[in-house]
């Protein structure tokens, strides 16, 4: 049991600052915080950036980096005697294949990807000149909270973090809570493989994001704004801190706080994020209650993705209807990340609901003959090229058992074996499962091991039972990770049955 007045939320920061994890360090942090040592140890060991500190480079083993030649990069590092450790997707997929140095800066990788050209009519407009006038915040204050809510509702803005939940509904839910202490949390833990749009927003348009946060906080009556930044994005945090420091009066009355991630994809899930912010293991909580009711420190909390927040300034300045009209099948524009076998990987802002072909047109066309794509990161599974003209939107993709998710589109051409690609994604989910609930903790292992056995032995018998296991993971897992973790396998098997025939196992290039 923690001591009265324990300062649990300091645990991770103290561990991070202190260096190498050891039982003695843990005892010291126990004295500083009043949290029992076993819990501090268990928490530290949850996070890979705290538990595995070494001089080794971090080499990305994500699918996009594999497609771009991470194996060759590994060989190159070995040749030069540079030690490395393979880790989950690093959020630098546009620069694939990537390795980070000890300061989590890119040591090996290509130049940053492309973005859509400057166009003032784009709601986010990554290439535009960032603007610190806070005109939209002033506008919100003139309108008053209820008109702001109506504007957001009229805009049809859906959460860009993955689930596509209507933003205004969450704002109203927070406002309806009795507690005067409320929080706004910016989810900048971007970790879905193939996704790096939030990184680009924060680096290129920090004021769009900060202003969006200020509007949200003012409207729902929250005094504190917490920005949770993925640990592997030190530049993002530094940039935002600088931008906030440079603002004077406009943000007075708002308390901005930064929280760093420590290497766990699951912390992007909003309740795990809150756990991490409170200095705990990043294990998702049972919902209900939702964060809007019981969030950070038990208080009402509005959690939004970076992109959702960055849409707000132009919605307020140009109106809800205007934003809604920017979409094709659903409201608004959307930042699509595209990587894999395309000529110009990057982030493209397009009407929500464009097709894969529209998107890849922007990205300079396909490399080779396209075969499959992930519409929204690892969580969306794979789709065959026969679906290239489907709208990439929230509802349409959900109807076919996939998802838009974070819109991290990965394209694969006909050099790719889909059983191998499914294995790649299964490795990701197995590594990133929090391990809390049995269907996901055990199911991800069963899946990955069976796929590896199949690819090694070429005998489809290795895959026996996987349909039931996939069903159970989807039905019974506690959070969204386990629910989708079998999708790469089930979708690959469904759309590319030929790759699951005996002895078909060419390697991913």
């Amino acid at each position, binding site marked *: 049991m923690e001591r009265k007045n324990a300062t649990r939320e300091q645990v991770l920061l103290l561990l991070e600052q202190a260096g190498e994890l050891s039982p003695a360090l843990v005892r010291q942090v126990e004295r500083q915080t009043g949290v*029992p040592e076993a819990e501090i140890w268990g*928490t530290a*060991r949850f996070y890979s950036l705290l538990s595995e500190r070494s001089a080794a480079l971090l080499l990305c083993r994500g699918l996009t980096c594999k497609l771009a030649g991470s194996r060759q990069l590994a060989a190159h590092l070995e040749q030069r005697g540079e030690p490395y450790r393979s880790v989950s997707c690093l959020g630098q997929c546009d620069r694939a294949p990537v390795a980070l140095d000890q300061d989590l800066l890119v040591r090996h990788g290509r130049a940053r990807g492309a973005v859509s050209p400057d166009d003032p009519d784009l709601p986010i407009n990554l290439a535009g000149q960032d603007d610190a006038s806070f005109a939209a915040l002033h506008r919100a204050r003139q309108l008053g909270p209820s008109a702001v809510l109506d504007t957001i509702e009229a805009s049809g803005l859906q959460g860009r973090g993955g689930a596509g939940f209507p933003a205004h509904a969450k704002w109203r839910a927070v406002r309806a809570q009795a507690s005067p202490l409320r929080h706004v949390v910016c989810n900048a833990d971007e970790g879905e493989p193939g996704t790096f749009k939030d990184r680009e927003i924060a680096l290129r348009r920090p004021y769009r994001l900060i202003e969006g946060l200020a509007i949200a906080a003012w409207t729902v009556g929250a005094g504190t704004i917490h920005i949770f930044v993925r640990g592997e994005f030190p530049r993002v945090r530094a940039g935002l801190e600088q931008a906030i420091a440079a603002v004077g009066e406009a943000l007075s009355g708002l308390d901005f706080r930064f929280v760093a991630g420590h290497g766990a994809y699951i912390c992007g899930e909003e309740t795990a994020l809150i756990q991490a912010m409170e200095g705990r293991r990043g294990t998702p909580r049972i919902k209900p209650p939702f964060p809007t009711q019981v969030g950070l420190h038990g208080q009402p909390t509005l959690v939004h993705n970076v992109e959702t927040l960055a849409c707000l300034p132009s919605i307020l300045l140009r109106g809800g209807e205007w934003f809604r009209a920017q979409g094709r099948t659903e409201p608004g524009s959307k930042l699509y990340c595209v990587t894999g076998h395309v000529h110009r990987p990057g982030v493209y802002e397009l009407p929500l609901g464009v097709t894969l072909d529209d998107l890849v047109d922007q990205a300079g066309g396909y490399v080779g003959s396209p075969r499959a794509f992930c519409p929204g990161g690892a969580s969306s599974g794979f789709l065959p090229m026969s679906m290239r003209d489907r709208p990439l939107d929230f509802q349409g993709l959900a109807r076919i058992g996939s998802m838009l998710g974070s819109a991290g589109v990965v394209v694969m051409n006909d050099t790719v074996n889909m059983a191998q690609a499914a294995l790649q994604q299964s490795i990701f989910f197995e590594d990133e*499962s929090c391990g809390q609930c*049995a*269907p996901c*903790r055990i199911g*991800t292992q069963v899946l990955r091991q069976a796929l590896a056995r199949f690819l090694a032995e070429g005998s489809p018998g290795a895959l026996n039972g996987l349909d039931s296991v996939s069903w159970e993971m989807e039905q*019974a897992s506690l959070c969204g990770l386990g629910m989708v973790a079998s999708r790469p396998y089930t979708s690959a098997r469904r759309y590319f049955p030929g790759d699951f025939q005996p002895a078909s196992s060419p390697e991913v290039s």
Partner: protein
Amino acid sequence: MNGMNHDISIRIDGHSVPARPGESVLDVARRAGAHVPTLCHDPRLEPAAVCRSCLVEIEGQARLQPACSFQASPGLVVRTDSPRVRKHRQVLASLYMADHRLADGLPQRSPAGSSLRGFAKAAGPLIQLHPVHSPRAGRPGDHNPYIGFDPGLCILCARCTRYCDQVHGAGAIALAERGRATTVSTNGGAGLLHSSCELCGGCVDTCPTGAMFDKKPSHHLPGQLRRVRTTCGFCGVGCQLDLNVKGGRVIKVTAPAPGQTINDGNLCVKGRFAYDFIHHQDRLTQPMLRDGDGRLRPSTWPRALERVATGLKRVQERWGSGALGFVSSSRCTSEENYLLQKLARAVFGTNNCHQCAAT
């Protein structure tokens, strides 16, 4: 009805069942006689809903929901035995069997230790999956005399860690690592004697698999021991405990199930582990009096009390009441302590009385 207020009713498998708002669906279902398996549930703990064994169908909910944490509300419609729920239990049990050994054939290690076996057996014919060999670390260097941890049996239900934190308040163990490597650990995996553990054994009692086990050797399989309920003699609290007996000998002590006795299934290190004295050759089982030659010899209670009374009176006569002092043991009950101070004050006329737990 049980003296409880049932303001609402919900439907369980077609039957209307009275319930209190906010009560868990599990409690209502069990009262109605429905079979809902649980592994991570312990009524003393905040629900964790991580083992997923209790998932049921609830109308209006797209996903299966954990009965142990889902709250009853008016008109809720619950199905605990639909084909979907049955398939879920079957596959979940198959997954558990791919990752965990059962304590089958092992000596009885903890009272709840067969819950996983019960769940797996009831779930029907299982799907044979390759064992996954999760890399869960144990604590091989932990030489404490009482509590062992066998990571091969552990299903990470977190009952032990939640018990240690929420009930015992020791915070000696916690979940550590992530994903497939998740395990139960102390700081750095040190032995329990080097942690804040008080060896209460509550973690052993609540463990549903026998992964957390009583280290004292026992070669008795489940069902071979007779349980005799008694009151712990170590202090005045009056905890109830079960002596597990065979052939007139106490083999081990376990706590009664939670909710049955005042100690609610909890014991301390003495009540649970300090029973070796019962059959020890040095144990005093009758009063002993010192003879003229200074040697202790067995005697009777009347003679022993007589000797005490004489001695006390002699001191009082010679040196006065202030020369007497009465100290009682923390093993005494409140009533016994009351009597002792009565003896001191009313019979001997002194306020010199003390109880060792009073400071």
